[in-house]
């Protein structure tokens, strides 16, 4: 694959201190910790890998059923099942270090202290390129209200992370808000370097035969191609409103989708649910962006970013 790539197209981007060889990342929670992908392609072909959310302590996750297919998408309520911070560092991160790709660690917690602990412990660990702060977690101190739906809570959690790390800080925004630009500004004011959007949309599904929710947790996060127009709209709006680079995601399935996000103002994109269906999607999208640029007579991907206003 590498030998086919002509040198005349420059796919590299630099956003908020994060340097990527190409603008294609994997979205947290849809790519495990990378090891599961060993047979499908060389991870060095990617701009970066965003690992599954890591919490301070291991989490068992939610009861089953956790995932249900919907029209052109899936609803999930996994419950942040992960091996915990120390097991991540000891058992998962060493594998990812072997590849020439950016490693972004998604961090999640119930309290500000959780986020502070994660940021402090991960600061200075070799092989980590950036932290992505999952502000869609429920805040236990505020009756389970998501950090990311309140500008003040967003400010507090991003600030707590910012103070404890020298790594680029990515705020991953929830779309479940009235005006996402308000939250985006709050994250920017608190010191975020990059914004990633969107996380999943809250939704549910009911089984008429059993008259019960299809998910054990009743509600879940909707992802997949059904959310792409919503996500693209939010990326475009935030790009107009807030002067921070954006990682765009939400329903991207192919290079055409990815290019739409770049044109709308994203500096990089992430593939999410499509990874479940087409394991090779991320590398196909890298190649597809290159072909698009060639067809358009463009030399550098950064020249097309945000050109549709």
């Amino acid at each position: 694959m590498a030998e086919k790539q002509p040198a005349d197209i420059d796919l590299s981007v630099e956003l908020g201190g994060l340097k990527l060889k190409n603008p294609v990342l994997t979205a947290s929670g849809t790519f495990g910790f990378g090891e599961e992908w060993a047979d499908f392609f060389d991870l060095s072909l990617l701009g970066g890998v965003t690992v599954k959310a890591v919490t301070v302590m291991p989490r068992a996750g939610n009861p089953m059923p956790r995932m249900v297919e919907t029209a052109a998408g899936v609803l999930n309520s996994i419950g942040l099942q992960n091996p915990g911070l120390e097991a991540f560092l000891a058992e998962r991160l060493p594998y990812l270090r072997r590849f020439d790709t950016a490693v972004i660690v998604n961090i999640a917690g119930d309290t500000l202290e959780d986020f502070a602990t994660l940021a402090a412990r991960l600061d200075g660990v070799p092989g980590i390129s950036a932290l992505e702060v999952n502000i869609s977690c429920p805040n236990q101190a505020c009756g389970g209200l998501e950090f990311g739906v309140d500008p003040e809570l967003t400010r507090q959690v991003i600030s707590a992370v910012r103070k404890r790390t020298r790594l680029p800080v990515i705020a991953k925004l929830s779309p479940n808000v009235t005006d996402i630009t308000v939250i985006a500004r709050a994250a920017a004011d608190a010191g975020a370097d990059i914004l990633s959007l969107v996380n999943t949309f809250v939704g549910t599904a009911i089984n008429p035969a059993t008259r019960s929710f299809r998910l054990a947790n009743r509600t879940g996060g909707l992802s997949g191609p059904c959310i792409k127009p919503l996500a693209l709209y939010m990326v475009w709006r935030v790009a107009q409103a807030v002067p921070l680079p954006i990682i765009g995601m939400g329903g991207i399935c192919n290079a055409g989708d990815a290019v739409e996000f770049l044109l709308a103002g994203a500096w990089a994109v992430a593939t999410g649910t499509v990874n479940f269906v087409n394991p090779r999607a991320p590398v196909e999208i890298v190649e597809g962006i290159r072909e698009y640029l060639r067809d358009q007579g463009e030399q550098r991907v950064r020249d097309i970013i945000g050109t549709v206003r």
Partner: protein
Amino acid sequence: MRYQLEAPILAHEQLAEYEFELTLDAPQIATGAQPGQFVQVLYDQTYRPFTRRPFSIYKPRPEAGTFSIVYLARGVFTQGLRRKRAGERLSIVGPLGNSFQPDPRPECRHILVAGGVGAPPMQVLAERICGAAPTVVINGARTASLLVGCREFAAMPLQFIPVTEDGSMGRKGVVTDVLGELLEAAKTPLHVYACGPTAMLRAVGTLCATYGVECHVSVETVMPCGLGVCMGCVVRVRDAGPAGFRYVRSCYEGPVFAADQILWDEAPGRV
């Protein structure tokens, strides 16, 4: 090694009223496939259906480079799959998951319990062990037309016991009726292997536990990715930690588990 392939369809036959067998040309998968392993299938790229579905690998033939899947065309996905014709291609990823390991004890008698479309992995396992060790296959379904693989099992050097709930073929009853008798009469060590609906697996596992007989089952769950990353197919198993359980991926650590490790109260199953 796992492969993502567009495999040519060599044959697509109707076996019974709703039952179909689809044969694929996929040497990479036919060569390495182990009993219990599966492939993730997608037949359309229109997002409807959006995710792949798992199907057990059946009749892997390394010399011919082929294998089959068997399915009941009862749901939206399988009714769409039914429209695929020989000569077209099918998108598959595999082989996926762990596999049944034949019990190595030389004096061991192997009892394979297959329920409905749970028969394919039992057929692959039977081919591996039936010439070398005493083997029994109990193949059960609601009615004769839903029994899978009878002709194949009957042609192998093993004891084949078909069972139907309506008595339309073989013994009338359920697989655990026959299994209970075999466990009761056993004079040599036994190992039970099972694949089928969750209720059957639970009943088989419970019966084996009563008699202190080793039992491995292949669980049936939804598998949105099948690749080990979505965490949507997990099974609750025993754990020495404070919670007493943990969730493991049926597509990655499984689908084959020791029956006594599964906590059946939150049973794996379809949504």
